[in-house]
Every structure is written in structure tokens, then in C-alpha cells.
């Protein structure tokens, strides 16, 4: 076996190794000081060791030996490289090493950047002093290991003492001591406490993502000294807490409701995503301990005590992008979401080569790859018996059965075909380059040799070699021979094989090779012959024992061979797994047919909003033995690696996973309290959401390039307490939000000098001398807007809906569809977490397209209308303004704001003619003039106002209603007599009216129109059939009752052609003399204003657009 290509040179857990050179030195000095003088050793530790590690060992270390030289041990450095010694002890001047670093000769080292004079001097001195090297350091670690050993994030979490502070009176919670002691050290003062209204608003948003409900707001005025604690308690108990923090976890989980790009044959929406989302909400609301929260997401399938819905937790693993079904990319995504999501380790970097910055070798990546590669997906109905009615369930069963039948038949077909072609697949092993990896997609027919089987055979043969499978001993022995000398050496090999016992070489194979083969091709033929024979023998045995089919062949040697064809690990067998795992085992046509059937099942489930499904992972019965893909190339396989945990965390006692895939063991290792990362990572995430920035500013990268935490001890204190107190997130929230630190004002210290000092010393506020204001996310903004108008539907859970579809759903944004392939541009514009990637922290950009959204998007305009409407019942303008402020900002307007608001309302009102009161008495619709009854039948309002006209839809003619249209001047009848254009006047009270009207038809083509004036009570009052004419249609005097209608009806002549007309009508109350008692069809027609924002709506929009609404202090 080859040496694993990559191995950490420090095998002990890094936090347990002695990271500090000074300690090494102390150890050395106590025991070894007789061997060399102190100065020389001190020089080694302080100067030489860092130079060798940081500047030399990358090219001259364990991994690479440029010029044959290694400098990581005394022995190696003294030995020198390919061109001889580099170091003459005691004689720096004669040492090539010194010449090289001085860049005196041809050789200039290090090649990239020369050493400093100080470093050169140190090396010179060290060599002259005898090149002392402590015996306790037989081998220098690599630069990364060396650095990792001292890296803060890999040190064990210890609970530090709470520091003492001068202003003890400021302290409410332990975290205040950590924050304040730092501020005091820097000579900075914290900010005073924010006012109550601000605190309530801040709390409500940070805990629930919503503006405070009135009952929470009221606490601000309470005389209860515990008002703040009460608010925290109520908000944490609110189900909206779980929704809000779920969204934050969904960013981590790269949540989406769709699979991303898939081929047309496949359903592109997930069946199960939303059940995962609901599971996260519920778990957070129940304050499920975080360790269990993670455990279930990684391995819920392996828990006996889980609740049925807990399987939904595994959505974390299964709802990533689909990468066109290419396994290595799907698994890569899972490794990334797990390692960065839970431990802030960028393991994905090690896919192609050892991590450049962190102690994560490629081998570790493939150890985890093996874990996930040993798992298969499985759809699990969570409420199979109760979802939908019997008809739905029976249709589902039918579709599932169709899929099952076809899948079983296809599996058998292809397994049999592959067994019949063993020779072809064995031959393919000698020309593997012809069989590209998945991702190089080809169209296949039933006659083709499929690459997936070729690769399975490749793996099978590799494992046979590793495990010493007697069936293939001969194969591998011959395969080792070169083509040129094959014939010569084959005789020897054959002799040896024939001498071997049956544990080493399968006797039937040995027998087939009795005559030495002349070429490897001949070896393949012999094997093919053996398998063909065994296959035939087995088939005939089965055929002759139909009643009681045998389970094996009696002859052990034959049975051994039969298992290669039919055994559980047989490379010929299409695995018994869903199509998502097996699509490449079929020809293209079969594959598409299977996906279509799978799609029919999926779509049927999706069509039922009650049907809840989980997509779980389960361990495969046969686990895979991972191998490194060299440079990430899956067909270029390197060393075998065990499935095991990361070296940097598992340490010296690392053992391969032994239970199934190892997924549960992986999960256990992640949540092990000794794991230095997991607790630190989550408390940092929570901290970052409360304060706008983490103690560690890179929440998903705690590697060597992560900054030191701003408050290292605080991070550890939180992490340690968090674990000690049962991994409770709600407790963690309390520690934070109940602190004085969190209650500070955002304005900074009241004292101007103190503020200026703080701004200068810590402009980024990393030390928390104030609270940084927070901008609402898009989701928070939208929810707040709905809350302001009272429209917010607070129902929990369920299927997602399209937030941007006209009619605009009123549920929280959490329940909006996240379609990763067609993410609405509005979401992207507002920095929504890209659902393709694990997003530890959202960007926050300000671009004018966002402003355009606020100004012009129908979703905002709808809400603006609704908000204005919600204050419509207030009687005075002042009350309306006050109510608008209350609903949006939870405060009263200032005097200036009141005056400015009223001024705006007034200005709009004076500039714009208000629609006359009489306008309300007109309706615009279509229907039929019933010639027998002399009445109008089926009056229906026209659905769409296009600014100048009422009509069937935005397009005219409308697809359904055709040409029917009414304008201020006249209109156009519909395509037939069932679609007459009808302008309807409704009497608001009983009175006697007169009607004056003039009807004009002008167009030359066609045959003109018919017109009727019809009372709902009295029937037909007048009519005309005109073509290029003008007529008056008047009613002299008519007593009407309240609610009676007078219809002005126009329909087509004998055919539809150029039927537009003008018809102005005035209805007047004969008794009244004022203007208000006359209704004029033209004056009363909406002047392109019906959809225009009213003054109050405009004001409401300003309130929603303002920064006060969008920012939280």
C-alpha cells in the first residue's frame, strides 16, 4: 500500500501539543543543558526554528524536498541535498546555506523573498555556534501545523474568570465585565442606556424580526421594575422567535425550495424542503439543545428516541443544489455545509490539494467524503396516513407503484446485461481513459458499455487487491507484468499461481489459467470465460429449481465466483436505490423514463399542501472505502483513506469510524464538548446577530487566517457556559440581551470628548462602546410593512408561497418560495442569502434599485394603500397622521412632522381635482340586453382599469372579454351581443330624474351599433340603431327608487366592425338645483386617477420609505 499522500506531521491534537516554543525550551533546558550551551539553543528556538519552519520547510520539508534537501531535522539538514552538504558545522562562511540566503552565488534562497539581515545574521551565528538542535525536537512540524498548534481556535475551551472592573455598578451580566474591562483598559467609556422605546424596538427585532406588538410596546410605559425582563421573556416565548432565528440558520443551511438547475425530465422543486424549515422553527421555539439540534440534522435516522418529524431535520444535508446529479459535487456541498456550518472549518479547500492555510489534508476531505458516500437518500412520508383524502392517496400509490415496477424491471434488465458482458467490462479496465467520470454526460443506448459499471469494476478490483480476494489474485499478478515481457514472465506467474492454495487463488480461476496466457488480453478472456460459465450454471440451476430456488452454488470455489456476479457488493448489480442515485446505471432512454415517473410522484405530493415528507439519509448496507481523488479528479484515484474525523480535531488517538457510514460518529465528534470549535462557532453566530458583528468577524472561518477574537475570554466564557448549561440558545440570548452592554444607546457616550475618543480609537466599534444600529433585512422590512397595516398573517409553518405574485401573500417572508434557480431579483437586490452557498453573513449594500423598489414596486404600493386604509376610520387629519406614525414607528409625530404631513396632504389635495362625489354612483360593466324581457341581464363589472378606460384586462382587446370597453367619452361594445358595453347609473336615493344624452357613431366600415337606455324597474326607456349618425336619447321625467339603475347599453350591429361610439349622458334630480344633484358620465368618469395614490397613501409611503422605518437603533 502506498503511503497516504498527505498526513499531518503533528498527530497529537493540536491544542494538546506544546504550542509554545518557550515551553519546549524550558523542557530542554532542564534536562539537556549539558549538551550545548544555552545561547545556542535559545537562538535555535527564538530565531532558527521559525526561519526553518516558515521560510524553508514548504519546499524542504516532509512533503516536498526540492533538490533532495530537507531541513526539518538535524540529521536531514546535516545530510544535505542532491548536490551535497549545505551546512558546515561551525563554519558559516563555508556553508552553501549561508551563501544561498545571502544570495551570493547562483543559488538564491528563499527564491521568493530574501531573508532579512537579522535572519541571515542569526543563521550565521547559529552555524558558527555549532548548529545546536534540541533532541526534544526530532522533527520540525510543517509551517501550518506549527501555526495551528498555537492558533486560538484550536485551543480547548476553558471557562475564564470573569474580569474585575472599576465601574462595577454598570454590570448586570457577566459579559458586561468582559466588555467593560476592555473598554476601561483602553480608557473608553460605554454609552448610556438607550431609552425604553428604543430598547423595546431593538429587542423585538433582534428576537423576533418583527416590530413590537402593542402589548410589548406598552411595557415601555410600565412602572414594573422588571419591564425589560418581561419583554425579553415574552419575546423569547413568542413563536415568531423561532421563525426569525430559523431564517438565520437557513442562511447557514443554504436553504432553498428548489433544486437548482435540473434537466427537464426531473421535477425541479423539492418535495421536502419546507418541512425542514418548519422543523428548524419548531426546534428553536422549543429551545432544543443545540447539540441535539445538530445531531438530528446530521443523523436523525439513527435515533430511536426521535419524534417522527425529526427526520425532516436531515434536510440540512439533502436540500442543497443538485449539480445535475454529479455525486462528487453534491457530496462536496454537504461536506462544506457541515464543516463550515457547524465548525467554521473550510474543509472544502482540501478537495484538490492539502488546505493551503489550515491543517486540513486532502486525506481528511476524502475521509468525510467516504462518510457521505456511504449514505443514500430516502424519502420518508411524515404523515402518510392523514395527508389528503383517499383519492389522493390511492393516486399516489398508483404513481409510486408505476415507478417501483419500472425501476425494478430496469434494474434487473441492466444487472443481467452487465453480468452477460463481464468480458467487456474487464476489457474496459485496460482502457479506463475511454470512460469519463460523471459530469461528462453522454447519450447511451442499451448496447453501450456504461462508464458507471466500468468504474464499479475498477473499484471492485482495487478492493479485491486490498483484501486479497482469491478470485482476482491471478488478475493482479498478471496485471503487474509489462506488455513487452508478458509472455516471458507469465509462465513464472502461472507456476506460482498453480502452486498456491485455494485461500490464495480460486481453484476454478487457477484451472482456467493452467496454460500460461500469452497476453493480458488472454487473461481477460479466460476470466470472461469463467464468469460466463458460472453465470450459465447458476441460471440453469435456478431454472431447474423454480419451486425452491437455491441461494448459492454448492461448490465453494464456484460460489465465490457467483458472488462476484450476484453478491451484495457485485459490480454488476444496479444498487437498490432511488433513481437519484442510479440514473447513470441505465441507458438514456430508460433513465428519462424513470425520472418522468419519479417526477409524477413528486408533483403529486407537491400538489397536496398537507403532505409532509422528509428526505433523509440512511447508511448504505455496504459502506464505501474512500480513496483520494488526485487533484480532485474523480477518475484519478490515489491512496485509500479510512472514514474518520479530522486530524486537527481528533488528535493522536484518531480511530476510523466503525459504525455504518460513520455519519453518527462524525456528528458525535462535532458536538463533543472537547471539540474546541462547535460551541465557539454558534455563540459567535448568535453574538453576531445581536451586535451586527461577531467576536470573530468571520463566522464560518475559524481557521488560521481568522482574526483573533475581539474578546477572546468572553468568547470562551460564553462557549463554556453554553455547553455547561445544556446548549440552550434561549439562555444564551438572555445572557446577551439582558446585559448592560446590549442596553447601551447607539449614540455613543453622552460626553462629546468621550465619544470623539471612542470614534478615534475604535471606529468600527469592535469593543462595543455603543450599539451599532442595524438595518432591517428584506424579510424584516416586508414583515414590518405588513405589520404596520395590520395585514400580517401570523400563521406558522406550511408550504411556501410566491411573495412577488400579484395578490401578494400576507404571510411572513420566511414562508416565501426560495427558488434557487430563479431567485426573484428583488431578493438578490436586497442581499438575500444566496441559496446556492452557505452564507455566514449577508452583504449589506445600498443601491438605487432598492430605492426604485420602495418607490414603485406594486408590492409596496399595495401595502401603502392598505396602511392608509387602516387609518381611514379616524375622523380628523391630525388623528390620521398620528395613527400612521403610531403604526409605523410606534410613536407620536413631533410637531414638525405633524405640520409637514398635513402640509403634504393639503398640497396634493389642492393640486389635484378630487373626483366628484357623484362619481360613486356609476358602474362600468358588460352584459346582455334581453330583447324579450326588455331588461339588462347578467351585468358584470369590467375587471380592469387601464388609466383611461375600463376593459377586460391590461391588453385591449382582452383574450376573454374581447373589445368591450368604456371610456369617459363613450366606449366600444363587446364582440357579440352577450358582451354589450353597459354604463350603469344607480340612484342613491328616491327622486325624479331627467336624462339627457347624445350618442355618436362615426366610423365608415361596419354596420353601426345598437343602443338602449334601460331602467331596472321600468324597463326600456329608449333605444337606437345607428351607423355614422348622431342621436339624442333623452328621458323627460322618471321617478326612481333608491338603488334603481339606469343602464346605457351598446351592443354590436349585425357584426363586429368599427363599433366605437361616443355617448355623454347627464342624469339630473329634477327637484334639486345645485350641481351635486347632476350626474355627468364624462365628469364622473375616473380621470386616469382611480389607481393613483391618494394623498394619504402617498404619506404612508413616505413613512415606510424613511430610514427610521428601516433602521433599528
Amino acid at each position, binding site marked *: 500500500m502506498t503511503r497516504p499522500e498527505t498526513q499531518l506531521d503533528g498527530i497529537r491534537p493540536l491544542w494538546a501539543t506544546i504550542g509554545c516554543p518557550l515551553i519546549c525550551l524550558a523542557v530542554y533546558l532542564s534536562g539537556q543543558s549539558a549538551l550545548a550551551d544555552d545561547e545556542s539553543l535559545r537562538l535555535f528556538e527564538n530565531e532558527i526554528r521559525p526561519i526553518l519552519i516558515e521560510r524553508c520547510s514548504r519546499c524542504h520539508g516532509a512533503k516536498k524536498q526540492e533538490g533532495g534537501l530537507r531541513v526539518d531535522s538535524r540529521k536531514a539538514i546535516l545530510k544535505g541535498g542532491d548536490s551535497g552538504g549545505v551546512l558546515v558545522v561551525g563554519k558559516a562562511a563555508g556553508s552553501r546555506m549561508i551563501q544561498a540566503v545571502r544570495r551570493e552565488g547562483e543559488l538564491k534562497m528563499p527564491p521568493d523573498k530574501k531573508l532579512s539581515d537579522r535572519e541571515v545574521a542569526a543563521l550565521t551565528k547559529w552555524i558558527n555556534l555549532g548548529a545546536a538542535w534540541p533532541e526534544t525536537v526530532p522533527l520540525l512540524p510543517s509551517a501550518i501545523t506549527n501555526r495551528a498548534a498555537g492558533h486560538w481556535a484550536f485551543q480547548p475551551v476553558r471557562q475564564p474568570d470573569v474580569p474585575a472592573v472599576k465601574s462595577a455598578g454598570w454590570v448586570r451580566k457577566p459579559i458586561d465585565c468582559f466588555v467593560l474591562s476592555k473598554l476601561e483598559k483602553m480608557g473608553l467609556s460605554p454609552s448610556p442606556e438607550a431609552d425604553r422605546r428604543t430598547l423595546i424596538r431593538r429587542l423585538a427585532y433582534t428576537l423576533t424580526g418583527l416590530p413590537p406588538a402593542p402589548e410589548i410596546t406598552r411595557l415601555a410605559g410600565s412602572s414594573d421594575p422588571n419591564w425589560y425582563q418581561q419583554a425579553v421573556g415574552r419575546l423569547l416565548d413568542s413563536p415568531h422567535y423561532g421563525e426569525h432565528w430559523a431564517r438565520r440558520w437557513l442562511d447557514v443551511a443554504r436553504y432553498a425550495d428548489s433544486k437548482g*438547475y435540473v434537466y427537464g425530465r426531473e421535477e425541479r422543486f423539492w418535495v421536502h424542503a419546507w418541512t425542514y424549515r418548519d422543523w428548524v422553527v419548531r426546534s428553536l421555539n422549543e429551545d432544543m439543545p443545540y447539540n441535539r439540534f445538530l445531531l438530528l440534522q446530521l443523523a436523525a435516522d439513527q435515533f430511536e428516541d426521535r419524534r417522527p418529524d425529526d427526520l425532516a431535520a436531515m434536510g440540512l444535508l439533502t436540500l442543497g443544489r443538485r449539480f*445535475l446529479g*454529479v455525486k462528487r459535487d453534491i457530496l*462536496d456541498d454537504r461536506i*462544506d455545509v457541515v464543516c463550515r456550518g457547524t465548525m467554521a472549518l473550510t474543509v472544502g*479547500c482540501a478537495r484538490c490539494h492539502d*488546505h493551503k492555510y489550515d491543517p486540513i489534508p486532502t486525506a481528511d476531505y476524502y475521509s468525510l467524503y467516504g462518510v457521505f458516500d456511504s449514505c443514500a437518500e430516502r424519502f420518508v412520508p411524515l404523515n402518510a396516513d392523514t395527508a389528503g383524502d383517499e383519492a389522493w392517496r390511492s393516486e399516489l400509490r398508483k404513481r409510486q407503484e408505476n415507478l417501483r415496477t419500472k425501476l425494478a424491471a430496469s434494474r434487473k434488465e441492466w444487472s443481467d446485461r452487465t453480468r452477460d458482458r463481464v468480458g467487456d467490462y474487464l476489457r474496459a479496465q485496460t482502457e479506463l481513459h475511454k470512460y*469519463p467520470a460523471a*459530469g*461528462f*454526460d*453522454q447519450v447511451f443506448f442499451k448496447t453501450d458499455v456504461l462508464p458507471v459499471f466500468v468504474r464499479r469494476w475498477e473499484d471492485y478490483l482495487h478492493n479485491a487487491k486490498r483484501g486479497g480476494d482469491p478470485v482476482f489474485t491471478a488478475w493482479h499478478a498478471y496485471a503487474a507484468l509489462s506488455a513487452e515481457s508478458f509472455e516471458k514472465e507469465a509462465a513464472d506467474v502461472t507456476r506460482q499461481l498453480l502452486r498456491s492454495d485455494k485461500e490464495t487463488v480460486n481453484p476454478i480461476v487457477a484451472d482456467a489459467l493452467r496454460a500460461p496466457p500469452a497476453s493480458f488480453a488472454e487473461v481477460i478472456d479466460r476470466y470472461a470465460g469463467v464468469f460466463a460459465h458460472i453465470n450459465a450454471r447458476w441460471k440453469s440451476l435456478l431454472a431447474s429449481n423454480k419451486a425452491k430456488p437455491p441461494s448459492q452454488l454448492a461448490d465453494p470455489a464456484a460460489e465465490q465466483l457467483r458472488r462476484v456476479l450476484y453478491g451484495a457488493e457485485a459490480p454488476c448489480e444496479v444498487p437498490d436505490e432511488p433513481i437519484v442515485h442510479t440514473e447513470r446505471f441505465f441507458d438514456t432512454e430508460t433513465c428519462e423514463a424513470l425520472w418522468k415517473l419519479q417526477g409524477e410522484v413528486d408533483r403529486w405530493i407537491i400538489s397536496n399542501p398537507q403532505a409532509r415528507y422528509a428526505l433523509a439519509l440512511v447508511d448504505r448496507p455496504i459502506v464505501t472505502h474512500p480513496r483520494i481523488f488526485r487533484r480532485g479528479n474523480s477518475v484519478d484515484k490515489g491512496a485509500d483513506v479510512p472514514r474518520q474525523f479530522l486530524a486537527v480535531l481528533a488528535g493522536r488517538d484518531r480511530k476510523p469510524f466503525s459504525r455504518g457510514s460513520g455519519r453518527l460518529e462524525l456528528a458525535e465528534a462535532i458536538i463533543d464538548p472537547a471539540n474546541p470549535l462547535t460551541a465557539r462557532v454558534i455563540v459567535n453566530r448568535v453574538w453576531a446577530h445581536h451586535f451586527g458583528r461577531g467576536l470573530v*468577524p468571520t463566522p*464560518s*472561518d475559524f481557521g488560521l487566517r481568522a482574526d483573533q477574537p475581539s474578546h477572546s475570554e468572553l468568547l470562551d466564557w460564553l462557549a463554556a457556559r453554553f455547553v455547561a448549561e445544556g446548549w440552550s440558545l434561549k439562555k444564551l440570548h438572555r445572557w446577551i440581551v439582558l446585559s448592560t452592554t446590549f442596553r447601551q444607546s*447607539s*449614540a*455613543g457616550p453622552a460626553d462629546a470628548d468621550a465619544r470623539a475618543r471612542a*470614534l478615534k480609537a475604535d*471606529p*468600527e*466599534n469592535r469593543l462595543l462602546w455603543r450599539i*451599532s*444600529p*442595524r*438595518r432591517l433585512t428584506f424579510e424584516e422590512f416586508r414583515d414590518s410593512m405588513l405589520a404596520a397595516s395590520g395585514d400580517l398573517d401570523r400563521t406558522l409553518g406550511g408550504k411556501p408561497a410566491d411573495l412577488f405574485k400579484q395578490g401578494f401573500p400576507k404571510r411572513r417572508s420566511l414562508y416565501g418560495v426560495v427558488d434557487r*434557480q*430563479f431567485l426573484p*431579483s*428583488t431578493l*438578490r437586490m436586497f*442581499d438575500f442569502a*444566496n441559496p446556492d*452557498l452557505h452564507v455566514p453573513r449577508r*452583504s*449589506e*449594500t*445600498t*443601491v*438605487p*434599485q*432598492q*430605492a*426604485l423598489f420602495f*418607490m*414603485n*414596486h406594486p408590492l409596496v404600493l399595495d401595502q401603502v394603500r392598505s396602511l392608509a386604509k387602516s387609518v381611514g376610520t379616524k375622523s380628523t387629519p391630525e388623528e390620521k397622521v398620528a395613527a400612521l406614525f403610531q403604526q409605523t414607528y410606534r410613536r407620536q409625530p413631533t410637531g414638525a412632522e405633524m405640520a*409637514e404631513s398635513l402640509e403634504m396632504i393639503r398640497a*396634493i389635495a389642492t393640486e389635484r381635482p378630487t373626483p366628484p362625489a357623484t362619481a360613486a354612483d356609476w358602474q362600468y360593466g358588460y352584459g346582455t340586453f334581453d330583447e324579450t324581457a326588455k331588461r339588462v341581464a347578467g351585468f358584470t363589472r369590467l375587471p380592469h382599469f387601464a388609466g383611461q378606460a375600463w376593459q377586460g384586462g391590461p391588453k385591449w382587446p382582452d383574450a376573454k372579454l374581447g373589445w368591450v370597453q368604456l371610456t369617459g367619452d363613450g366606449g366600444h361594445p363587446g364582440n357579440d351581443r352577450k358582451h354589450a358595453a353597459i354604463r350603469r347609473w344607480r340612484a342613491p336615493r328616491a327622486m325624479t330624474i331627467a336624462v339627457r344624452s347624445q350618442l355618436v357613431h362615426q366610423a365608415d366600415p361596419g354596420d353601426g351599433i345598437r343602443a338602449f337606455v334601460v331602467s331596472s324597474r321600468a324597463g326600456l326607456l329608449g333605444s337606437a340603431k345607428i351607423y355614422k349618425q348622431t342621436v339624442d336619447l333623452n328621458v323627460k321625467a322618471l321617478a326612481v327608487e333608491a338603488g334603481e339603475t339606469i343602464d346605457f347599453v351598446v351592443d354590436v350591429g349585425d357584426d363586429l366592425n368599427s363599433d366605437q361610439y361616443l355617448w355623454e349622458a347627464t342624469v339630473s334630480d329634477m327637484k334639486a338645483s345645485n350641481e351635486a344633484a347632476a350626474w355627468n358620465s364624462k365628469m364622473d368618469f375616473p380621470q386616469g386617477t382611480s*389607481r*393613483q*395614490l391618494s394623498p394619504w397613501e*402617498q404619506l404612508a*409611503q413616505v413613512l415606510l*420609505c*424613511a*430610514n*427610521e422605518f428601516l*433602521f433599528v*437603533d
Partner: protein
Amino acid sequence: MENLVCRRPLSRRDVLRRSALGLGTLGLMGVLGDDARRAAGADLSARGPLDGREPHFPARAKRVIHFFLNGGPSHVDTFDPKPALAKHAGKRLSGTLATERKTGAVFPSPFKFRQYGESGIEVSDLFARTARHIDDIAVIRSMYAHVPNHEPSLMLMNCGDSKQPRPSMGAWVLYGLGTESQNLPGFVAMCPGGLPTKDSENWQAAFLPGTYQGTYIDSKHQELSRLIENIEHPQISTPDQRRQLDLLARWNARHRDDRLDHRLDARIHSYELAFRMQHEAKEAFDLSREPAHIRELYGSGVHGRQTLIARRLLERGVRYVQLWHGAGQPWDNHERLEDNHRRLAGELDRPIAALLTDLKQRGMLDDTLVLWGGEFGRTPTVELGGDGNPIHGRDHNHYGFSVWLAGGGIRGGTVYGATDEFGFKAEQNPTSVHDLHATMLHLLGLDHERLTYRYAGRDFRLTDVHGRVIKEII
């Protein structure tokens, strides 16, 4: 958050300085942080995400227009003449490379090649008008990709990685250089009639902030409201909206007064920009403002229209425009290639030639980089149907294909690299997509090894760990 400023009223100069399309905030800077500072060698600390930025070194090109012939145009029928195909017509090639589908015998080009310009480079009749500009064009005949499938190859061509979600070239360029447009998106992708295969992934921002994502425009439409989202305000009159914004500005200013937050200013000004955009964007898309002879030059079809719009956008400072041929993958001519290629090229040849003429007469060709190409080329052998009979088309070919570049510092009249005798595989100077990207970035003044962004523990580049600037064509 890191959003403190010593607040003072914004002067007009401040406004101008910050008023590139996107207004930066220190909030964003928190995200970009070190990454942004590393980017483009520019100090972004006080700038917006889309503000114009200095390149690493003096740029030859300021903007890019990319004709994407999605589906894969056949190189042996356009810019890579292969007389051997006629000579060996109907014969089987030995050692045919694996492609997506099965192909049969050698399939000669049904199109005639002629020499053009002083350089005498041969181009087929399909692009006869474009060919008249050949002395401004550098043809790379030795491109290669990794797999013969559309999706990964589209990703490779656009984002430099065929598998993982990575930022597109336009997004990188916007990140590196910002945009000079005050009122328009900095990166525009137009495709008439719907999205190309792989949808908006082709112009994705991936881990870069969403601001850098390409803005998609369905150029089939002519109404402005369908071209740019939220640009029109049919429900409120302009004077009313102005009054709203005045009140808003007053309230926002008051709100800002006792707060230490840079983002508040940014947001205040974004409203002013948006207000202006409503008018000026309209103008940019209004082709009726072009003289008749220019409209005539481009032609009246959808491609003429979208190309002319593209020119108007580039003229107004848009950094990167991608013009796709149409929804799906129109150039994917597995069958009846002759008819299909003729029709498709017929739609494009005139607009492309018009653009080159037009850019040149405006002096814009010097600093506008034009790229033409698909995600791969096509096989020199004929595709076989399910019954094993030829179907008069060509299969995908990622082993060798052509793209061409013009303007923006490109040495015209150049041919770089070559495929084998039949055009199957890049043989001489094989050129990776990374090389192409490195070269384009170079012309834009960006060092492809220095334009990086820290994500998930790595400093990512458009060219990953590859890429060589093709000095021979610049």
C-alpha cells in the same frame, strides 16, 4: 457595525463622488473588508461597491460586449476552415474522440470560406459582413473546454468553473472596476424571449455581493417597464413623487442628525439617484433617439435592436454587456445544421458588423472589448440519429473550437492557435477558457492573479489557479 463617520452634511462633491450607480456603505465594506481592499489594488474603504475604481495597471479596454452564441456554433463552419473535411467527406475518422452522442463520417462544411481583409483570414459566408472587419479581429482557433455538455461548459465560459457556483466574469469585472454609469446597471445580460440554458447562473454573482450580479433584460420586449424593473411609476405623477422624496429627504436628514451611521447618508442619496434613473434609463433604451441611418445599419430585427441598445448602454458607462442569441440554446444544431446555422448567423451577422462599424466611427472600438463565441464548438463528423443514420448536424465538441475578440487592445488580423487537420481538437497553442479570461482581464487593466475575493477560507480568482495572458493577440 463598522459604519461610523464623523458626520457632516454631504457636499455636492461628496454626492458626486459616491453617486455611481451603487452607493457604498461601510456596511458593505464590512463584508468586503479585507477582500475588497485586496481587490483591484484599490482602496475601497471609503467607496461604494459600484464606484468606478482604478485598475491594477493602465487599461486598454474600459468595457466589454460579449456575443454569446449559446448552444455552440460550429467553428468548422464559421472561423476555422478545414479543407480536409471536403477531401475526406463521408470517411470515418480513426480514433474519434468521445462526445455526447455518436457521430459518424466526416461532414464537410456546406458553407464557402473566403479570405478577407489585408490579413487574408478565411471566414465562411455565414459571417460575411462581420468578416469585413477581420483586420480588427483576433481569432483564437484553439479553444478547449472540459466536457461536451452545455451546462458545465456554459459555466466554464462564463464563470471559470464548470461545477461550483462561482461569480461570472461580468460580476468579477464589476467588482474589480465598478461601473461608470450613474443611472444604469453596471452589468447587463440581454436575451430575447427568455433565459438561456442555465438561466441566470450565467451572470451570477455567487459569493460576491448580489449587487454584482448581471441584470437580465428580455430584449424581446420594447416597453421600458418590461426591460427594467420598477422603473416606471404609473400610479403617481412625477410632481407628486418629487414632493414625496422631498419630505422623505427632510425626515431622513433629521433622523440622521443624531446618529453615527454612514449608511443613512447612502440611503438618502440612493433615492435621489433612483429618481433620476427613472428618466435617464428610459432615454438609454429609447432607440427612436437614434438617427434612421444608424437603426438601418443594425437592422430592425430583435438582434439589431438589442445590439444597438447595448451600444447605447456601453456609451453611457455600462461596464459589461452580454448579448445572448435566444432562450435555451439556439445554436445547438444537432440536426439540419446547414439551414439552422444559416438562419441564426443571418440574424447576427449584420448587427455584429454594424456594431463594429459603429464603435469604430465613434472612436469606441479602441477601448471596447468585443468577444464572440459559444460554450464550445461542434464535431467535424456528422451526428447519427438513434437509428444510426446521419442527421445532417454536428455534435458538441469541447476539444477544439473558436472564439474571436476585437477592439480594446486586441491585435486585429490575427489568428492564434489551431485545431488538427479536421478541426476536432486544439493542437497548436491549446487555449483554455482561463487563458481567455486572463487575457480579457489584462486588457481591462486587471491582473487575474490579483483580482481575488476571500470566501470560505480561500482567495478566489476568476481563473482559479490557471490562466495565462495570451500576449500574442494583444
